[in-house]
């Protein structure tokens, strides 16, 4: 390409060609999606199994979700090093996922703090809530808890996933997010045990399957570029 003068048609053709080239050069690797899809699926399904078959793996399996932050940082740094171009869409979507991450941590914080605070406030007002067993008639102090906390997580999972899917017009992610809303509605009518199952399934539909599809597309395009 040189500094030669162009005709009007050639100019428009060049502009179109370059814009198309810029569009085609945007590749999502799918790595983060696979990581979080796997991590949350394992956490949800193991937690469901523990509750379903009454056993314990000896530690809170959701800690794995915390540990997954370490490879995520590594992936983000590596992808940032390899990236030659940043689009406005990438910047906005990255911000959406950062806000989502912060919101998840805030929600987990809320799950852990609010029950204790509720009990303290009740105690300060001189009240205590009791639960009465309708069969035996025995009353025991009622421990405060966040009802259907898994449903709130499902609701939150769907938001950035649907935004990403709609922005990229990526059907697997849109379908995953819609299914996630379905799991959210179902979880309103079920106990925590099934909520955990829905969490695991939502992670598979939302992130793992779309991530694997993205990865496959990315590897195909990369192989095509190297030919």
């Amino acid at each position, binding site marked *: 390409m040189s500094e030669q003068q162009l005709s*009007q048609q050639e100019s428009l053709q060049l502009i179109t060609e*370059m814009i198309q080239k810029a569009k085609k050069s945007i590749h999502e690797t799918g790595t983060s999606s696979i990581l979080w899809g796997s991590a949350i699926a394992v956490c949800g399904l193991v937690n469901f199994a523990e509750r379903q078959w009454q056993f314990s793996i000896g530690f809170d399996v959701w800690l794995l979700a915390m540990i997954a932050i370490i490879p995520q940082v590594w992936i983000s740094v590596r992808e940032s090093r390899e990236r*030659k*171009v*940043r689009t406005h869409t990438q910047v906005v979507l990255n911000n959406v996922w950062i806000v989502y991450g912060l919101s998840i941590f805030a929600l987990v914080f809320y799950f852990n703090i609010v029950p204790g605070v509720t009990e303290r406030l009740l105690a300060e007002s001189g009240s205590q809530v009791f639960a009465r067993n309708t069969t035996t008639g025995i009353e025991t102090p009622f421990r405060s808890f966040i009802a259907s906390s898994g449903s709130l997580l499902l609701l939150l999972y769907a938001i950035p996933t649907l935004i990403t899917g709609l922005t990229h017009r990526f059907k697997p992610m849109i379908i995953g997010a819609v299914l996630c809303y379905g799991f959210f509605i179902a979880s309103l009518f079920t106990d925590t045990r099934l909520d955990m199952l829905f969490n695991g399934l939502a992670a598979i539909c939302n992130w793992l399957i779309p991530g694997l599809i993205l990865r496959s597309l990315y590897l195909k395009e990369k192989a095509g570029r190297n030919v």
Partner: protein
Amino acid sequence: MFKDLDPILHSQLRLAIMSLLIGVKEADFSYLKEKTGATAGNLSVQVQKLKEAGYIEVVKQFKDNYPQTLCKITDTGISRFEQYVADLKAYLGQ
């Protein structure tokens, strides 16, 4: 015939650079080189001309101990590019 078209943009390589930058937030020099197929020397000269005209911003920095040149279209660059496309369309009667 073309006297009204922006002379800064009415050149093959500079127009290619601007067309690539119009849709992205920022791009590496190596990305522009890969997409335009230009030589580093020629690309560097045209990037400098666009920078001097105020159409793009050029940030030189180090990334993992290697020099990196990032190019980003400016607000002036966007409006001039849009005007250029409008002028082209007027010429073509679209």
